[in-house]
Structures are given as structure tokens and as C-alpha cells.
């Protein structure tokens, strides 16, 4: 379980997170939505200590990640896989080498075992054919799938997704959504997804939290989220053409 307890962060004199507290239960797909600059990605970065809070506490199970240093931090970080917004693949390594990188750097696995593991993960994401290709020769959606393969190659307990569908066409976006959903269902992985794509949030989320101006304005199940009476949430839903009635019509059957 991930727990944020009164976490505050200021950047350039502006309060980005204003004492937020929430919990991500194990095995859930927790979606954080909000407008650009609302503090979604900053929240995600705090979970793996790419940023440290000014005050408050962040627990990953029994580990307090904001206080972890050195080997302790590395141990906590190994519980995570992260899919970055840009996929963040190393451009001079092939798809295979990118996915194999954590195994080669952090484990004592032999090359044969590494190849077997990497093939297995790439097959899961339907990318086995592109193993010897460099990232620059792949489309955005394919790069994200490779990024996802790298994120799951060490069998993490938790996967963080930073805008997994941004810049992708609707078909590829739904494909990524399906992959996230499959990973949760098949591997029981806890997922935290940051997105401003509400269609995606409603499709994959088991819980949706909206941040606005560094504060939590809603934290509810998808069913309750679209029925929220909060004005900010209502405006956000309307901006993406989702109404209480429309959401059901747009194929959100899983919440019926």
C-alpha cells in the first residue's frame, strides 16, 4: 500500500502539493487526474523519490521512501516499475538491450536466462518482433510498450504510469489501457496512473483521484467520480464530453 500523509511541496515559490493525504490499496489501479500543472506528475515523482517533499511522509508498505538513502532507497525503488511519459528508452540501445538493462545491471542472471525473460516480457506486450530495432525506429505507442516491458521485467509490486496515453491515437491509447488492465488482472500488480485522459481513467481505474491546485478535490470509485457534485470535477468531466449519462453511453460498461 502507498500512503501519502500531509505531503507538501513548493516549486519556484508556488505550492504544488498542499498537504495531500491519500492511500493506494494493494492490487488496485489508482488513477490521478487533473489539469496540466495540477501536481499529478509531481505526486508520482514523490513515490519513487525523484522529488522529496518539503513536509509530510510517504510510505510504501512499511518503508518511508522520503527518508530512504543509498542502498535503502535502491531497495525501495526496486519495488517499482515506471513507465515515463516519453517512455525514456535509451536511444543507443536496441529494444532488447533496453529491456535487458535492469537485469544485466542489477541481477546476476546469465545471458541465456536474461534473453528468456526479456523475450517473455516482450511477447506479453506483442513486441517480440522488434527486439533488434532501435527506439528511434519505433512509433510512440510501440516505444511505450517497450517502456512497459522494461518496467515489468524485474517483476515489480507497483507500476507507475506517467501519462501513458498522451500523444497517442485513440486506438493505441485503448491498447495501452488494455495492457494496464491485463497486467493488473494477470499479475496482480498495483498500478498508479497519472493522466488527463478521463476516458482512459474511467476504463482502467478502480479508484480515481482528482488534484487541482495541489489539493485533492475528489477521491472516489469511477462510478462515484462521474456522479461527483464537486464543481471542479463536473467541469473536468464536461470538458471531455463526459456527462453522467454520456459516460454510460461511451462504453464504460464495466461500471454499470
Amino acid at each position, binding site marked *: 500500500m502507498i500512503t501519502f500523509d500531509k505531503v507538501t511541496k513548493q516549486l519556484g515559490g508556488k505550492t504544488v502539493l498542499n498537504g495531500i493525504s491519500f492511500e493506494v490499496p494493494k492490487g488496485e489501479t489508482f488513477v490521478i487526474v487533473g489539469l496540466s500543472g495540477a501536481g499529478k506528475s509531481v505526486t508520482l*515523482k514523490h513515490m*519513487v523519490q*525523484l522529488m522529496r517533499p518539503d513536509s509530510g511522509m510517504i510510505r510504501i508498505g512499511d518503508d518511508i521512501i522520503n527518508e530512504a538513502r543509498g542502498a535503502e532507497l*535502491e531497495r525501495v*525503488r*526496486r519495488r*517499482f516499475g*515506471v513507465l*515515463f*511519459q*516519453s517512455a*525514456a*528508452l*535509451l*536511444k543507443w540501445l536496441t529494444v532488447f538491450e533496453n529491456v535487458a*538493462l*535492469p537485469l*544485466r*545491471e*542489477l541481477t546476476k542472471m546469465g545471458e541465456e536466462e536474461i534473453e528468456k525473460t526479456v523475450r517473455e516480457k516482450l511477447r506479453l506486450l506483442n513486441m517480440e518482433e522488434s527486439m533488434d530495432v532501435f527506439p528511434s525506429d519505433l512509433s510512440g505507442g510501440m516505444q511505450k510498450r517497450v517502456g512497459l516491458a*522494461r518496467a515489468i521485467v*524485474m517483476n515489480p509490486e507497483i507500476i507507475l504510469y506517467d501519462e501513458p496515453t498522451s500523444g497517442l491515437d485513440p486506438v493505441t491509447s485503448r491498447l495501452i489501457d488494455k495492457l494496464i488492465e491485463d497486467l493488473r488482472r494477470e499479475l496482480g500488480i498495483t498500478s498508479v496512473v497519472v493522466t488527463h485522459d478521463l476516458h482512459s481513467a474511467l476504463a482502467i481505474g478502480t479508484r480515481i483521484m482528482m488534484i487541482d491546485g495541489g489539493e485533492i478535490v475528489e477521491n472516489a470509485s469511477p462510478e462515484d467520480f462521474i456522479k461527483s457534485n464537486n464543481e471542479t470535477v463536473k467541469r473536468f468531466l464536461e470538458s471531455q464530453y463526459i456527462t453522467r449519462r454520456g459516460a454510460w453511453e461511451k462504453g464504460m460498461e464495466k461500471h454499470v
Partner: protein
Amino acid sequence: MIAPFKEIYRYLDLPIRSFRRLGNILLIACHDMGNALIMLASATLYIRTIWKPRARRETAQQLYVTGIKSLGVITVVAFFTGMILALQTGLELRRFGQEVNIGTAVTIVMIREMGPFMTALIIAASVGSAIAAQLGTMAVSEEISALEVMSINPNRFLVMPRLVALAVMMPILTVYTNILGILGGGIVGSTQLGVAFQAYLDNATRYAENKDLYVGLFKAFVFGIIIATVSCYQGLNTTEGAVGVGRATRQTVIISFLMILIVGYMITRLFYI
């Protein structure tokens, strides 16, 4: 505020603001220097992992980029530096009938100062800026964050191979620069100043001491570490997208040039005074 104080404050406002700005710049410089030294220490400690297959491959790649890929420009610059040195000193020495001594002048200046100095400037401008641009692009496209999250230390994975490559290649390239510079001087001496090539070479080796060579190579080694530290630090700390990458590249060249000049002077003073 009372009128006279207002007037005084108006006059003092500019110096106070300038002083504050200067203080801020100094604080940032101290902070950056401290962090860069921590990065250097960390990368140095990771040299023990250089025998791992991936680290070995990456270091070999960096040695190739630093050494072989820079040879073309270094060849031209070294040759012409020696030729210019020989021509300038030779024309002056000719007034006293001492043009035969250009061998000594060129050799001592090349191995003591110009060899390491010119090599360092070329490497800072070509390899250093390329490292800053590459690592800077990685930083703004979240690749460095991805490494950190995977618990792969960027100081081990990226900085260490570049540090080793520059520290090893700089003295080797400096020897190459010295040889070409001295040869260039010899060609000018024999073709334009009437000094026989053999006489030039005899003169070149007569007064130069081993100490000159060692100090020159030590300088080159230190310059290599400076270029690696500055370029990696600037690259890894790049923010603000493409503009940031441009800024990191420019800063790398400027800071490296300044550090090379200042540290070069300090080493000369340390060994020769």
C-alpha cells in the same frame, strides 16, 4: 519614508542589488562546484566496476569517441601550432642569428604548455560539448530519471566511462599533439628559416627535460578530469528542454576553458616556481 533617507536609498539601491546578485552567483557556483566534486568522487569510486562487460564496452566506446574521432582536428591544429610557433620565434631569433635554437623553443613551449593546452581546448569544444548535449538530452527526456528509478546509478553508468576515457586519452592525445607540433616546427624551420631538419631535431632534444614532459602530461590528465566533470555535471543537471541542452553545452565549453586556463597556470606555478 523620510525624504533624505529615500534619496540615500535610491543611490544605494543599485550597488545593493548588484552585491546581492553577485552573492547569489557565488553561492550557486559554490553549490555547483560541491555537487560536481561529489559526482566526480562517486564516479571515481565506481572505477572498480570497469571490468564488468557492459562498463568495459561503454568505456571502449568512449575511448574511441574521445581519441580516434578527435584525431583529425587535433592533427591540423597541432601541426599549425608548431608551424606558427617556429615561424614567430624563428623570425625573432634570426635578428640575433640564433634561428638554430627554434628547436628548443618550439619543443619546450609545446610539451610544457601548448600541447596539453591546445589538446584540452579542442577536446573541451568537441568531446566535452558532445557529452553535455548527449547527457542533457537524456536528462530532459527523462532517461536519467528512468535510470535512477531502476536503481542504476548514472555516475556509474554514464559518468565513470567518460571520466576514464578522458583521463586516459588526454595524455595520449597530448603526446600526439606534441610530436606533430614539433614536426610542424621542423618543417617551417627547414623550409623557411634555413635550419636543417637534423639540426632542428638535435636542438629540440638538447634542452628539454623529462620533467617538462611529465608536467605536461600531468596537466593533460588533470584537464581530462576537468572536461569530464564539467561536461557530465552540466549534462546531468540540464532542465528546460532544448533551450536547456543548448545552455548546458555552452556552459560546458566556457567553464572548461576557464578552468583549463586557471588550473594550467596553477600547475605551472607549482612545478616551475
